[in-house]
């Protein structure tokens, strides 16, 4: 029946998400089908009512001024002020480019690692460090479906000394990723998995060696378009051991 084909697409039609060809097909169907056209009308009314009801809150003039002042204070100065400054800066920049570039990347690298350390410590301090609690990778991995725009594999752990505690969604520089928590002995190790991006590689090159940051150990590598960080206060050997298992699992 034509209804079976077109009726499930009504929302997409009203949201203008069908292809041009499908839009034409739906238009033709609605002209002929009273049932679907009535249904479309009701959905459109709900959509319009939502739009009107949703435009509800307006910021106060005082709040607007406050934010404008803050934004202006952090924005670049007016053009007529910085044109001569720019000319001078060009000379300085020529000399300082390499130094500044290195400093910036080091600073960004430190910022990235500090953000990971914050995530790890905040997680351990939380009364609910994980949102999915299970030592079973077949429970933890599917929990992330629909929450992250990628998927990943987790290793089998029996006999390795590591225990999976669970996981949650974490954000690194506003990008969502998986934050998994493992135990080894009395230590907690965080495993972060994010989509790899050139800027991460630039400031934090993927290496197989373990680095020491703020007394934590961290190992990072990329595989399959993803960037992995294994982070914790356990020994470098323990961090490397878990990293090896993750890499073998297809990481």
């Amino acid at each position, binding site marked *: 029946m034509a209804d079976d084909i077109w*009726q*499930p*697409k*009504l*929302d*997409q039609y009203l*949201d*203008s*998400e069908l292809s041009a060809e499908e839009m034409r097909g739906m238009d033709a169907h609605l002209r002929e089908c009273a*049932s679907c056209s*009535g*249904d479309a009308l*009701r*959905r459109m*009314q*709900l*959509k319009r*009512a*939502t*739009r*009107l*009801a*949703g*435009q*509800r*809150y*307006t*910021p106060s003039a005082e*709040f*607007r001024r*406050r*934010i*404008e002042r*803050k*934004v202006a204070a*952090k*924005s670049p100065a007016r053009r007529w002020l910085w044109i001569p400054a720019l000319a001078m800066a060009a000379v300085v920049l020529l000399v300082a480019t390499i130094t500044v570039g290195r400093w910036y990347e080091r600073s960004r690298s430190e910022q990235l690692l500090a953000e990971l350390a914050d995530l790890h410590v905040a997680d351990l301090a939380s009364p609910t460090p994980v*949102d999915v609690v299970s030592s079973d990778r077949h429970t933890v991995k599917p*929990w992330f*479906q*629909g*929450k*992250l*725009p990628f998927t990943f594999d987790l290793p089998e752990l029996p006999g390795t000394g590591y225990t999976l505690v669970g996981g949650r969604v974490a*954000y690194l*520089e*506003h*990008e*969502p990723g998986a934050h998994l928590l493992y135990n080894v002995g009395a230590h907690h190790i965080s495993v972060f998995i994010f989509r790899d991006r050139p*800027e991460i590689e630039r400031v934090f090159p993927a290496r197989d060696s373990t680095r020491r940051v703020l007394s934590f150990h961290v190992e990072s590598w990329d595989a399959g378009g993803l960037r992995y960080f294994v982070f914790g206060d356990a020994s470098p050997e323990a961090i490397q051991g878990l990293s090896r298992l993750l890499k073998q699992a297809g990481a």
Partner: protein
Amino acid sequence: MPLFDSLYNFAHWLTQNRDEAEDLVQETYAKALRGFGSFQPGTNFRAWIFRILRNTFLTSRTGLAATRTVPLESEDEPEQTVAVSRETPESILLEQAGQQQVQAALEQVPVIYREVLLLCDVEEMSYQEIADTLAVPIGTVMSRLHRARKALRAALEQKTRETKHG
């Protein structure tokens, strides 16, 4: 300031509190200014800044509490769309419901559904923009929208019944 009114409206709907909404918008602009280097030219600025706001909300106390109350449902596949109820008292809901009732119903919808309704129907974002903002696949956007509209309709029905009997 770009998108100031839209961001504030969205923040207030998420937090349901003026002070928290102001804090959220202020933090969003601060993070956007600090992290402008991570914005990739050519990508969608609106989705980028809405994503900052939403992520900031999710890590706030209100955001954590709001998202923990949402039942976990499988969002792998878009739910099969079914016809809305027809020729029932519910079908004339919107004729009876005033704007305040729609707003009250929208307040009742879980935040995970409220946000997708606001982004689609109020901000008029495309599914791709919503997917970028929420960092989920497009299939999940469609599935959430379908559930969100169903939840809104149910909340509206309840409001209408309460008005009739109240």
